């Protein structure tokens, strides 16, 4: 028998020394074929020419074949062991790399069985023996008690690995696992697909990241914010209540009303900082409900209370501007916009609040006849902590967190916010929210 092909080259993608190995394999194979052909041709010729006894000829030919097979075997052995050695070394390097990762990595085959895990997986789960991880992914998730953050089970069709094996690109999802010592570990899980040459999903690689530190930090931040709110609001409560108490007397000092108003303003600022930070944390749950934006805006205008200088505020809007929104937060946006309009316009000039429906959107606007925003500062109005009027005669104070937060709240409602402004004439701030469809009624 004459072997005709070199040993199968290792899979291309997984071989960093690909070109070199492939080249040398071809070279050896070519050498092998040429020398084989030369051996067969030359030895045949030699036998024909120098041996006349047919019986000896036949024996020599058998010997010739045996020598050929033996040499082929030696060459094949050398080739295969070289490839194996390289593959093994590459595999070791890959393993060492995976083991040095802080994130857990699971390699899952097309049949849903785990083929390999790195060291981080054993450390995250507490299941020390790698062999114990090499089971079907469903069984593994049961062993580590994989569940959602709220404790509910993760349905198999949600598994990142199984989705990846279906060719989807699952985004990271947050989950919990239970370690062998009984403690719970928050993790985020994502997976990617490795395809074969025909484009079929061959493997899924899942990455399991320990998010306990990130979670702890965000909780610490939450804690800090709550403490700050408490620390600031309690003295504000005392000041305000004392001022109100004094106001109840027969002839109250006029300045007391100012104290109450400024305390209210400080309270709003504290609230704004909290809101801004909380939205940054991206962990604010919006409490969705179906509400009429016209009615919500009307309530804000009605509740404005006594205003310095008695700004006339008009409201125009018909009911039926139904949107899906968080009532508290949208109310805060409207309050902040109206408050800005009042602060940046002369005391006797009217402020006009409107709510209307245009196409599939409902649009809120508040127009003032105030100082307007200088054109060169208009680009930065929505920047966090940017104050368009700082350092100009019309600086009315504020922290610059209002508009930035407003826009973020509106964006999280699927809406947008913009403005038109002309210095000396006034500004109009607007936001649009998508109208709630019939399905939102359900």
């Amino acid at each position, binding site marked *: 028998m004459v072997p005709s092909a070199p040993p199968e080259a290792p899979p291309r993608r997984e071989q960093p020394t690909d070109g070199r190995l492939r080249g040398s394999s071809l070279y050896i194979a070519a050498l092998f074929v040429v020398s084989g052909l030369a051996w067969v041709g030359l030895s045949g010729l030699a036998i024909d020419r120098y041996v006349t006894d047919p019986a000896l000829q036949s024996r020599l030919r058998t010997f010739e074949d045996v020598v050929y097979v033996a040499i082929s075997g030696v060459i094949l052995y050398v080739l295969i062991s070289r490839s194996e050695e390289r593959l093994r070394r590459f595999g070791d390097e890959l393993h060492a790399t995976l083991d040095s990762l802080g994130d857990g990595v699971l390699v899952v085959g097309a049949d849903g069985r785990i083929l390999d895990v790195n060291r981080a997986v054993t450390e995250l789960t507490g299941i020390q023996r790698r062999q114990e991880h090499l089971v079907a992914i469903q069984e593994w998730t049961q062993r580590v008690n994989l569940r959602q953050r709220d404790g509910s089970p993760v349905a198999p069709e949600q598994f990142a690995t199984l989705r990846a094996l279906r060719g989807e690109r699952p985004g990271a999802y947050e989950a919990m696992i239970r370690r062998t010592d009984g403690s719970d570990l928050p993790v985020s899980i994502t997976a990617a697909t490795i395809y074969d040459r025909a484009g079929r999903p061959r493997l899924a690689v899942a990455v399991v990241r320990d998010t306990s530190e990130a979670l702890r930090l965000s909780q610490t931040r939450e804690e800090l914010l709550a*403490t700050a709110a*408490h620390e600031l609001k309690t003295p504000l409560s005392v000041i305000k*209540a004392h001022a109100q108490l004094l106001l109840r007397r027969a002839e109250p000092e006029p300045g007391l009303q100012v104290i109450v108003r400024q305390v209210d303003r400080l*309270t709003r600022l504290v609230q704004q900082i909290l809101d801004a930070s909380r939205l940054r944390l991206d962990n604010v749950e919006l409490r969705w409900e179906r509400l009429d934006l016209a009615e919500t805006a009307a309530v804000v205008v009605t509740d404005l209370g006594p205003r310095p200088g008695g700004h006339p505020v008009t409201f125009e809007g018909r009911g039926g501007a139904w949107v899906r929104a968080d009532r508290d937060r949208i109310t805060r946006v409207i309050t902040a916009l109206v408050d800005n309009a009042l602060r940046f316009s002369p005391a006797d000039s009217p402020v006009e609040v409107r709510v209307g429906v245009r196409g599939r959107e409902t649009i809120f606007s508040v127009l003032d006849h105030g100082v307007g925003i200088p054109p060169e500062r208009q680009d930065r109005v929505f920047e966090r902590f940017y104050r368009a009027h700082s350092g100009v005669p019309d600086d009315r104070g504020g922290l610059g967190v209002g508009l930035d937060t407003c826009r973020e709240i509106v964006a999280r409602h699927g809406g947008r916010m913009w403005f038109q402004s002309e210095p000396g004439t006034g500004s109009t701030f607007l936001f649009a929210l998508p109208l709630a469809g019939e399905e939102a009624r359900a």
Partner: protein
Amino acid sequence: MSGPAFGVLVVEDDVDLASLMALVLGDAGYRVRTAPEGGAALQRVAEEMPGLILLDMRMPGMNGWEFARQFRARHGRAAPIVVVTAAENARARAAEVDAEGWLAKPFEIEEVLRIVSEHAAAGQPSAPAEP
């Protein structure tokens, strides 16, 4: 109006705020006692059950959550609890300790008086409101 003998326990660590509430509620004719933290409040409650507890949540010593838990365990719903909090979502705080009401800081004096008078009216159905 509420009966003058209606007792209110103010659990609040801020001395100024506690004395202010005592002043306001005392002026309105309520019998007010204060406690700077949960442990002291449990003692006051054991001495005499108030008609209403105004409860701050964050306090040194025993906090509002722990006080509410122990109070419910020992006395059930012997007195309604109104949570007084600076938290962003006062309603959620109240729900956490299964309180009967909530008051967000900073509050209006009128609001404190309204809440207390509501509970006083509800808590003393047998006593004539207006003698």
